[in-house]
């Protein structure tokens, strides 16, 4: 698995399409309404999957690791939402922390971790 992270609008999807030769239909975008298609070559917006978990009282880290066999050869993409002020709302705090723990776990699992900064890739692992 290759993990791609970065702030919002930093060019992560563009980088994935360029690097892995994927078209938009090869990239599944998580929503807040259900489980992702873990068999897609690339799953993005995992921060929304994390929010889906939090709203159902589940831990994003534990949930995603349960599907490890499905994404172990995939590209996973997630917004980094960790750097702002601690949110006032309890659900947002749980979401932010749950996303952080999920990304730390995915980083351990990943073959490579790449961060996008203004469209430029930075290899972290």
């Amino acid at each position, binding site marked *: 698995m290759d993990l791609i992270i*970065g*702030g*919002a*609008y*930093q*060019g992560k999807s563009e980088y994935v399409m360029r690097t892995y030769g994927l078209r938009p239909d090869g990239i599944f975008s998580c929503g807040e309404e259900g489980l992702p298609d873990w068999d897609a070559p690339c799953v993005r917006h995992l921060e929304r999957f994390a929010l889906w978990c939090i709203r159902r009282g589940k831990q994003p880290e534990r949930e995603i690791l349960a599907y490890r066999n499905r994404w172990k050869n995939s590209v996973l993409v997630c*917004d*980094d*939402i*960790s*750097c*702002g*002020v601690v*949110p006032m709302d309890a659900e*947002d705090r749980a*979401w*932010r922390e749950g*996303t952080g723990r999920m990304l730390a776990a995915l980083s351990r699992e990943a073959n490579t971790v790449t961060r996008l*900064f*203004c*469209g*430029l890739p*930075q290899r972290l692992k």
Partner: protein
Amino acid sequence: MTVFLSGGAKNGKSMLAQRLSKALAGGGRLYYAATMIPHDGEDDARIARHRREREGWGFETVECGRDVMAAFSHLPRGTVLFDSVTALMANEMFHGPEIDTEAPLRVREELNALADWAENAVFVSDFIYSDAGHYDPWTEQYRRALAEADRELCRRCDAVAELCAGNIIVHKGVLPE
């Protein structure tokens, strides 16, 4: 040479940008593109502080809260410190009662034109993309527009660096000495 700097607030972007642009000018003309349009006493104080910090550096201040090239095109060419893309985008998108939906493209064109015009340019922006906020649609449009302007500048700039607690992370090229 063109340089792009970004990062969080109070990480040393402006001071580094001043140093780099002065070095790039090499004694030639050196412009400070002032993008802030003051709205209250706090803004006036901030502008006065920035002016004091620039004293003795040899900058000519060019006011360009909007319409960048209108302010520069009649001047002799030189090195430009543009601080900041963030303020320009806000000024251009939110100058009227409604959001100006043509502003994002116009800002990218203006900044490209400035980079073409300048002998050297250092652009400063702000990294506002890694928090857990839920924003209203206007703010979200602004974040996207600023990110797209940042990315376009990063494609064309010779060097790109991120500032983090005063430390420099170079993402592209080599910063000037």
